[in-house]
């Protein structure tokens, strides 16, 4: 990617709208970018067998959905540090000593050791962590193999990012809805802040909707760029989203702004809900959220009367102690205002009937109930585990035609914290073999010290990775993974939407890099269970999955996208996929599991005077997705160091200055970062960047390429006060902490750049 050239709009007027001519020596491939998890449809230009450019799709429905991470990918994936051959650990775990081995030798040894772990401790002693859409070609094969072998202990970052939202949405109306941005009239962003270079399609849809006249309401403690464009910005206190939604419901119910007919015909529990909402008079809501009561009421009225409105998925309610209640309240707002399964509202799309979906591939039905009930975390925090989701089997079959629906891969997961405790020898049974694919688990869940201990206590760790991440540095085997430029992909939109999209293979993978499909095929071969992955190639597997379309993969991939005919208000025919068949404002399933069936609000524990500030984390910087892309010079030039944000007043109170290295500390741990002062930050709140390590720093135990210095997971607590009760996921939005200047080693603080703008939004 060349440096940004001086920009003259005259040069490019409408250039991107023109059908591009065929260039000599260049072929093009339609691709789906996996540089982050939103899967933009793009075009790869190929020369001499290499993707040399990634650009926006020629298809107008995907136009402009491309960001800086996408266009730099050809260079990022060609980085000289890319792992190209299988590596086997030869020193102590974490010593950083490796030898190159063949895939065949690696698989043989892995299978011998995995079989021994299973023989000694049972199949549940094998855990897998992955984010399936980053690995992309897993397609549920990992779950399928685990289900046949007998392990329920699959975990993923989606436990605190979208997957858990999907699972919890089922408690209300049986599916995870997707907002109809094309037709909506009002959008509510709860702390989420899609930007031109971060979650680009959603930014595109939101801006497009605003251009058509849709209203935008933003709840965010920061004055984000979305907040700056909003019709109403509610600068609520961090972690008070649930109280805010109770305030909205108070207004909507008291002023009778809800859809009475829908509530009467299609919901249960309205009167109980009303009583719970009455516990939140506006004065209380204003106190809990720190927002002006008039503005709260105005926003609630806008949501209820300007509709159809949407509340798009947000990571904010995925990551807090009130997560289940927050996600449920979003569903309740959507429902009582009559926005469920209508155009412009929130669509319940179900499966695409012409494609064998990934839940079917996973074959959850073969895992015995006895093993399902061993799933780690399911006793105390069952919401997204087999135990918590079991009640939806019958309703799901009634409405969507099959018992299991692993929407956004978030249903039927083990709880991450319970899994790491078991791995560390502190659980109800031991876990001794751990695989991770396209995932950096050490830095991707709460309580990194526990995860580190857990990994050091394993008999076998296998990583399938592109780069030597801090987690991979602790593995026994690091097997080289391909990238989205180097293999085809059938993308079923996370099992969430019914649209299916297709990506061509644009180039061969370097060295011995292999797809996740090939990884799992190798594993089942070595485990003497080749029948579990019977397809010879990924393309054969796709042909099997798309047979009902009447087309072969090579034909279908050229069409880019395969839609299911839109249908609305399907509940009028089938009911909702809940036990009652109605929208459960009061959840029968949560009640059955022993939890409060209505949403509720847990306030913060008493403030510890040693940690007077609150931090939030989980925010992605434009150049990076999660813990990735730090090896790419152009991305690091944009974000050379991890930065925390503070308001000027808070920085002064902490005795720290712009550009200075500081420590952020709490009872769990400490990280180091540079300070950026932002007037868009409220006082007493610390924005901590997510996923920082430096690939150029020393590898191995005790160093982990800077992860021990910078990784925010060292500050993320998972003790009971900081876990959601129903799901067991951590509270990342308002964790007590303090900020101190770095006193030791002291890299000389760089002089603050006085020209640096401080009035920019806090992203």
């Amino acid at each position, binding site marked *: *990617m*060349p440096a*940004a*050239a001086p*920009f003259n*709009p005259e040069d*490019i*007027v*409408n*250039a*991107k*709208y023109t059908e591009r001519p065929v260039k000599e020596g260049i072929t093009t491939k339609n691709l789906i970018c996996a540089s982050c998890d939103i899967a933009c449809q793009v075009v790869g*230009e190929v020369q*001499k*067998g*290499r993707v*040399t*450019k990634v*650009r*926006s799709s020629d*298809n*107008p*429905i995907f*136009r402009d959905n*491309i*960001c*800086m991470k996408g*266009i730099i990918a*050809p*260079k990022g994936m*060609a*980085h*000289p540090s*890319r792992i190209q051959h299988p590596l086997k650990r030869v020193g102590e775990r974490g010593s950083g000593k490796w030898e190159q081995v063949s895939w065949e030798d690696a698989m043989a040894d892995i299978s011998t050791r995995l079989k021994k772990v299973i023989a000694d401790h049972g199949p549940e002693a094998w855990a897998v962590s992955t984010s399936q859409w980053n690995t992309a070609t897993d397609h549920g094969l990992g779950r399928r193999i685990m289900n046949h072998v007998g392990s329920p202990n699959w975990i993923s970052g989606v436990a605190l990012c979208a997957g858990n939202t999907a699972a919890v949405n089922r408690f209300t109306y049986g599916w995870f809805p997707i907002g*109809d941005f*094309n037709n909506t*009239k009002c959008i509510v962003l709860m702390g989420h802040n899609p930007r031109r*270079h971060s979650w680009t399609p959603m930014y595109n849809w939101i*801006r497009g909707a605003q*251009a058509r006249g849709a209203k935008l309401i933003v709840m965010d403690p920061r004055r984000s760029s979305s907040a700056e464009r909003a019709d109403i910005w509610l600068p609520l206190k961090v972690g008070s989203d649930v109280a805010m939604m109770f305030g909205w419901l108070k207004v909507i119910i008291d002023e009778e*702004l809800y*859809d009475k007919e829908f509530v009467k015909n299609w919901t249960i529990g309205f009167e109980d809900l009303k009583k719970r909402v009455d516990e939140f008079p506006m004065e209380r809501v204003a106190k809990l959220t720190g927002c002006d009561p008039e503005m709260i009421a105005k926003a609630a009225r806008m949501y*209820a*009367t*300007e*509709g*159809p409105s949407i509340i798009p998925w947000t990571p904010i309610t995925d990551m807090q102690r009130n997560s289940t209640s927050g996600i449920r309240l979003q569903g309740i707002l959507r429902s009582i205002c*009559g926005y469920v399964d*209508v*155009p412009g509202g929130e669509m319940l799309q179900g499966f695409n009937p012409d494609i064998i979906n990934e839940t079917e591939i996973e074959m959850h039905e073969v895992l015995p109930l006895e093993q399902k009930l061993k799933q780690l975390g399911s006793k105390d925090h069952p919401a997204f585990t087999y135990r918590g989701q079991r009640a939806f089997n019958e309703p799901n079959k009634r409405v969507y035609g099959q018992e299991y629906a692993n929407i956004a891969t978030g249903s039927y997961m083990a709880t991450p914290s319970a899994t790491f405790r078991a791995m560390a020898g502190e659980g109800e049974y031991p876990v001794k073999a751990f695989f991770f694919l396209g995932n950096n688990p050490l830095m991707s869940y709460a309580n990194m010290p526990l995860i580190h201990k857990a990994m050091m206590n394993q008999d076998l760790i296998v990583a399938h990775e592109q780069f030597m991440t801090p987690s991979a540095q602790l593995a026994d085997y690091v097997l080289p993974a391909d990238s989205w430029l180097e293999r085809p992909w059938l993308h079923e939109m996370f099992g969430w939407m019914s649209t299916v999209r297709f990506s061509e293979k644009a180039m061969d993978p*370097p060295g011995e890099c292999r797809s996740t499909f090939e990884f799992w095929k190798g594993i089942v071969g070595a485990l003497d269970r080749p029948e579990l992955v019977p397809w010879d190639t990924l393309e054969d597997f796709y042909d099997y999955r798309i047979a009902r379309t009447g087309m072969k993969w090579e034909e279908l991939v*050229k*069409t*880019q996208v*395969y*839609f299911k*005919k*839109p249908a*609305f208000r399907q509940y009028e025919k089938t009911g909702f996929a809940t036990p009652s068949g109605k929208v459960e404002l009061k959840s029968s399933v949560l009640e059955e599991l022993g939890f409060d069936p209505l949403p509720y609000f847990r306030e913060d524990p008493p403030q510890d005077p040693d940690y007077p500030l609150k931090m939030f984390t989980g925010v992605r910087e434009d150049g990076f997705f999660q813990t990735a892309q730090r090896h790419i*010079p152009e991305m690091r030039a944009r974000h050379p160091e991890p930065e925390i944000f503070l308001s000027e007043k808070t920085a002064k109170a902490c005795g720290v200055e712009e550009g200075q290295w500081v420590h952020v500390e709490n009872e769990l741990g400490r990280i180091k970062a540079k300070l950026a002062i932002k007037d868009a930050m409220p006082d007493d709140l610390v924005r901590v960047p997510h996923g920082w390590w430096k690939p150029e720093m020393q590898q191995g135990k005790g160093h982990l390429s800077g992860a021990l210095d910078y990784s925010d997971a060292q500050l993320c607590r998972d003790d009971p006060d900081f876990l959601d009760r129903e799901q067991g996921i951590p509270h990342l939005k308002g964790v007590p902490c303090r900020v101190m200047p770095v006193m030791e080693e002291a890299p000389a603080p760089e002089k603050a750049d006085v020209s640096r703008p401080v009035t920019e939004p806090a992203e």
Partner: protein
Amino acid sequence: MSTTDKDIRKMERSVRLMTWMAARSSRNQTFIDRLCRKLVERATVVAPEDDFMRDPLIDNDQGFDPDELDRYQRGEQAIG
């Protein structure tokens, strides 16, 4: 909510039509497909002065030279 049932039915028909056109436009093989693509393009184009997706980094990207990428991958050359 303010939208009437009639409005919603109208929107439902519109969404079905839009989806059909998007599918044909994406396939882009037959005369009807290409016509749909032209119509979708025309319907979605934004005037340059209002185009919130314009971005110099994206619009000026020239991509890479394949030989340079080869040398870069082998650690022989940095690419600026």
